[in-house]
């Protein structure tokens, strides 16, 4: 898998006129990589992910996945939204299997795959529960399982743990890392939580505030096996400080 964006620009036409949200975004994700993009609120992170998902079209520039341009949404780019978007009338198992159903996968194979991914996210006992009976963290795990069940080439995640409390968030981060190691899926995750980005990813894109552009790409040299002790490493703190400083610097005043 190879995802790359070329000189992405995105304008929105608002009542106040043209709003430049993303400016000259060039990024790439390779097979099996875990990449994060961090930026302040309103820096266009969600917009960037929506462009890559194909839910929105860039004003200019292009996005290529394995040499093919992205022209619309597709199952090879799975998405996990910030708000838990589960189908309220479907059980947990049906939610997880829905992508496969849409793609016409036979029922027997489908239920096998659903059982597999429910196990992966540790929700096997809740197969027949309805979304409203789940906690926030559980809902997000279902959403992740649903995205993974379609076996996407890359998983796009928009602040998936933003609404969770600190403990649940930490659990979910470790869970996601474990999942990533076992499935080998490429992940591009958006967050405004610098600590989360440093803990999870191998590479971080730091975005400027509006208009969002890539201020710096940070390669993290942390041990591949991340545990809670990783956070105590001296260079963990160093990376965090570095990125924090980058986020604090004002963008160059050439805003159109």
């Amino acid at each position, binding site marked *: 898998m190879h995802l790359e964006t070329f000189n992405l620009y995105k304008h929105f036409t608002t009542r106040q006129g043209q709003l430049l949200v993303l400016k000259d975004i060039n990024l790439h994700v390779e097979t099996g990589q875990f990449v994060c993009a961090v930026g302040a609120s309103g820096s266009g992170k969600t917009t960037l992910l929506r462009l890559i*998902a194909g*839910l929105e079209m860039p004003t200019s520039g292009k996005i290529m996945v394995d040499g093919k341009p992205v022209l619309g949404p597709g*199952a090879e780019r*799975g*998405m996990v*939204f910030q708000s838990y978007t589960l189908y309220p009338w479907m059980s947990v198992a049906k939610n997880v299997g*829905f*992508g496969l159903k*849409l793609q016409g996968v036979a029922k027997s194979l489908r239920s096998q795959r659903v059982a597999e991914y429910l196990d992966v996210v540790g929700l096997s006992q809740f197969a027949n529960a309805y979304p409203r009976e789940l906690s926030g963290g559980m809902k997000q795990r279902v959403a992740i399982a649903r995205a993974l069940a379609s076996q996407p080439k890359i998983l796009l995640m928009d602040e998936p743990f933003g609404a969770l409390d600190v403990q649940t968030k930490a659990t979910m981060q470790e869970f996601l890392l474990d999942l990533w190691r076992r499935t080998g899926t490429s992940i591009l995750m958006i967050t405004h939580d610098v600590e989360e980005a440093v803990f999870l990813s191998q590479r971080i894109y730091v975005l400027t505030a509006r208009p969002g552009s890539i201020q710096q790409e940070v390669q993290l040299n942390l041990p591949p096996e991340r545990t809670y002790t990783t956070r105590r490493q001296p260079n963990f703190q160093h990376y965090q400080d570095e990125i924090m400083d980058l986020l604090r610097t004002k963008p160059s005043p050439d805003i159109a």
Partner: protein
Amino acid sequence: MAPQHPQAPTSLKTRGRSRGIMPTVFWRIAEDIPPHLKWFLVALSILLPIGLWWFLAFQGAKFIPFPGEVWQALVTLQKQGVLQKDTLASCFRVGCGFLLAALLSAPIGIAMGTFASIRALCEPIIGIVRYMPSPAFIPLLILYFDIGELTKIILIFIGTVFFNVLMIMDAVKFVPKELIEATYTLGGLRHQVLFQVITPHVIPNILDAFRVNMAASWNLVVVAELVNANEGLGKRIELAQRTLSTDKIFGYLIVLGLLGLAIDLFFQLLLRLFCRWAVD
């Protein structure tokens, strides 16, 4: 010596606000009341009007029959088979007109809610026609379809279909956009979004719209029967008026109310059976 527990400034304690919200049972907002209170109030809601009615009759108020007389009138009509025939005739008309409206309004409403193009195509005309009172169509309907069952069915259809369509269309607007987008990112196609996401999401709202608009159908069947009919609940009321048989009128009004209530409960049952996810 300084006071150990300084008093809050009195200005903050004015108008009894200092005690916070007083505990209450009756006036709880968005919370259940104890079952015994609930059943007491439910019983009161039925028994109080009946009591008042009986009292008025007892006072010798003009044209107010005793509840017992109304019951007798109904029993007599039932023994003659008139009540059954009337009920059946009215139910048939409402059934046909409403079913027709339901079958048409669900797909049109969903299509209008889903596609801005269909909405632009249909909304203006529906917006106008729905403000034309359907009883005003009666003269035309009689000219076009003659005085028969068809005219009554079409009248009920006209009076129901547009409201159904607009209510269903509005329900589609409340389908979260992210749910639709999530479906696309799972590989869903447009028709799959329409039939497997939007449609199941609005089914509870469709049932609700049907439930609400059923009341309009019952109103119209009586109007239609007043114009011309051989039997029907509305027709019988008109006939009873000629003989000043207020006992029959009271009886039929109660029958109309109970039938409506039964249909309402039936829709609620459907909702509970098939849309468990949408009801608590």
